C-alpha cells in the first residue's frame, strides 16, 4: 500500500518579481515497508521536498501539487492541527546538519526527554513520569549506538562531535515509533564504521518494525547498501526513479549514469588512478535554470529537443524523463 504519495509537486519561490520553480513537477511515492532513496546533489531540492512534506516551508512560497497525500488524506488541505498530529506520531524527520537542528541552549537530556511522546509515559506522579521518560530515552539512545550515555546526555550540543549529535537526532526521531522516517542526509560526514552502524539500525527497524524510510542523501554507497528503490533528482526535476537493482544495473537517464560513474567503488574493473567519467560544469543556480530538461547544457547526449521538458515514460516500473535515454542509440 502506498503511504505517501506525491504527484507533480511544484514549489515556486518569488525572487525579484519573477517566480522560480525550485521544484518542478516532482513525483514520489513511498510504499509501506519500503526504503526509498532520494538522490540529488546540493541545490537539487532534496531538502525542499522534505520540508514540503513536513510543512516546514515559509508561507510565502507557493506549493501546488496534484496529490500530496498521507494514507489518502490530503496534506495540503489539512488544518494545521491535523497536520501536526500526523507529523508528531506517524512521520518523523531527521533534519540535515544536527548542530543547527539541535537547540544550542539546552542540554541534550532535556531535549531528549521532551521528545518522548506522552502516551508512552507511565506513572502517575511527576517523579515516576520523569523516571519513565528517562528509561525510554536511555533505551532508544542505547539502540542507536551511543556509548557512555551518561557522559553524553548531560552535555550541550557544541560539546559533542557531530556524529554523536546526529545519533541524538536519530534517537529523537525514532522515539515516537513513527511509520515513516524521513532522514535528510543522516550519514553526512560520518566515518565508515559509524555509517554502517546507522544503516544497520535503519535496516533492522525496517524489517522488525515495518518502518518505511525516505533516505535523502548523495552517498550512493550507503544508498545501494540499504535502499529498495531510488528516485534521482536534478535541479528540482525528478529524472529517474525505479528499483535500486534495476537502476544500478542499467541506469536509463544520462544523469543517473554519471552519478553511478562518480563512485569508483561501483566499478571494480576501473584502473586505479585512471580518470573518472564526470559531467562538465556545475549545477546551475536557481536564478539561471535552463528551460526544458535542466540537465541539457551539461548532458553529453543533449540535442535540439531537450529544450522541451520530456514526458515521463516508464519500463517495468522504472520511470524516466529523457528524450535520449541510455538504452536508445544516440543520434
Amino acid at each position, binding site marked *: 500500500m502506498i503511504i505517501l504519495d506525491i504527484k507533480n509537486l511544484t514549489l515556486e519561490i518569488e525572487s525579484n518579481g519573477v517566480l522560480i520553480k525550485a521544484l518542478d513537477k516532482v513525483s514520489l511515492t513511498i510504499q509501506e515497508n519500503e526504503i526509498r532513496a532520494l538522490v540529488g546533489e546540493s541545490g537539487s531540492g532534496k531538502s525542499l521536498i522534505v520540508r514540503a512534506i513536513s510543512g516546514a516551508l515559509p508561507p510565502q512560497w507557493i506549493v501546488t501539487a496534484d496529490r500530496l497525500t498521507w494514507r489518502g488524506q490530503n496534506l495540503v488541505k489539512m488544518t494545521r492541527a491535523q497536520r501536526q498530529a500526523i507529523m508528531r506520531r506517524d512521520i518523523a524527520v531527521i533534519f540535515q546538519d544536527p548542530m543547527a537542528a539541535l537547540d544550542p541552549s539546552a542540554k541534550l537530556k532535556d531535549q531528549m526527554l521532551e521528545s518522548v511522546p506522552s502516551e508512552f509515559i507511565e506513572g502517575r506522579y511527576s517523579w515516576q513520569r520523569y523516571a519513565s521518560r528517562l528509561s525510554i530515552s536511555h533505551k532508544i539512545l542505547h539502540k542507536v549506538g551511543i556509548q557512555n550515555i551518561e557522559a553524553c546526555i548531560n552535555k550541550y550540543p557544541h560539546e559533542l562531535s557531530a556524529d554523536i549529535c546526529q545519533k541524538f537526532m536519530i534517537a529523537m526521531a525514532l522515539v515516537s515509533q513513527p511509520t515513516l522516517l524521513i532522514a535528510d542526509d543522516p550519514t553526512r560526514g560520518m566515518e565508515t*564504521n559509524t555509517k554502517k552502524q546507522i*544503516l544497520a539500525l535503519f535496516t533492522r527497524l525496517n524489517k522488525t518494525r515495518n518502518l518505511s524510510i525516505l533516505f535523502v542523501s*548523495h552517498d550512493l554507497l550507503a544508498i545501494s*547498501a540499504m535502499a529498495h528503490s531510488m528516485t534521482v533528482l536534478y535541479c528540482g526535476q525528478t529524472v529517474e526513479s525505479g528499483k535500486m537493482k534495476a537502476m544500478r544495473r542499467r541506469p536509463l537517464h544520462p544523469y543517473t549514469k554519471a552519478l553511478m*560513474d*562518480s563512485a*569508483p567503488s561501483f566499478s571494480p574493473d576501473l584502473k*586505479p588512478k585512471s580518470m573518472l567519467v564526470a*559531467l562538465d560544469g556545475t*549545477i546551475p543556480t536557481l536564478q539561471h535554470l535552463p528551460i526544458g530538461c535542466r540537465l541539457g547544457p551539461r548532458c553529453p547526449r543533449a540535442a535540439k529537443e531537450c529544450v522541451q521538458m520530456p514526458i515521463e515514460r516508464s519500463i517495468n516500473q522504472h520511470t524516466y524523463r529523457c528524450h535520449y535515454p541510455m538504452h536508445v542509440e544516440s543520434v
Partner: protein
Amino acid sequence: MTPLLSIQQLTYNPPKRWEFLSPRSEFVLGPVDLHVHESETLAIIGSNDSGKSLLAKLIAGAVKPTSGEILLNGQPIGTHQSKARANNIRMVFRHSAESLNPGISIGSMLDEPLRLNTQLSPAMRLEKVMQTLSLVGLMPDYYYFYKHMLSDGQQQRVALARALILDPQVIVADEPFAALDPSVRSQTVNLLLKLQAELGLAFIFISHNLGIVRHMADRTIVMSNGQIVESNLTQTLFTAPEHPSAQKLIHAHNSMLKL
C-alpha cells in the same frame, strides 16, 4: 633514493593547562614515522579522533610538534626554516570553502602568498596567478571574483590553486572531497590526478571515502588513537588488512558494497 618528505619520530602532546579544573583524557600523537616520494599519493584513513587531521596540521606546520623531525629532501625543516616549509608543503584545509576569505577577491587571495614568499614583481605575480587559475581550470576573469560568486566546485578549485601557487612539492589535504557533490567530486579527483601527472606532486590526503582512497592512493596509512597502526600499498591493504581497526574499516566498506 631519498624520499621527498620523511617524518621521523614525530610526537605531539597537547599542552597541559587547567588540569585541576577539567580532567581531560590524555591524547598523544605518535611517535609517527612516514615518508612520501615524488609523484606519490598517500592516503590517511582512520576513525574519528584518531589524530588524522592533527597529523596533517603537523606536517603542514600549522601546529608545532612536541618532538621529532620532518625532513624535506633529506634536509630537516624546523621552526627556523618556516619559509622552506611554506614554499614546499602546502595545505588544503577541511571545508575548503570556509577557509577562503570572503572579503577579498580570488586574485588577491592568490596574490598574497606570492607577495609574502617571493620576490616577483607585480606583473610577474599577476602572470603567475593567471597561470595557476588556468591550471586548475578556472577562467582569468575569476581574478576579480569574490568567494560568494563561485560554486562549491569552483571554491574547491580556488583552494587548490592557493595551495599550488608557490609550486610546492607536497600538498597536504584534509578531507578535500567530503563537502563535494558526486559530479564535482569526480571533477576534483580528475584534476588532482592530472596535476600530479603533470607536476610530479606528492599528495597526502585524509578521507573517509574509501572508494576514492582505493582509486587514488598508492599507499595508505591507517591511524588509530594517535598511532599509525598499519601502512601498506593500497591494493594490499584493501585486500588483506592486518590490524583490527584497519580490518574493521575495510570490512565495513566492503559490506556496504556487496549488497
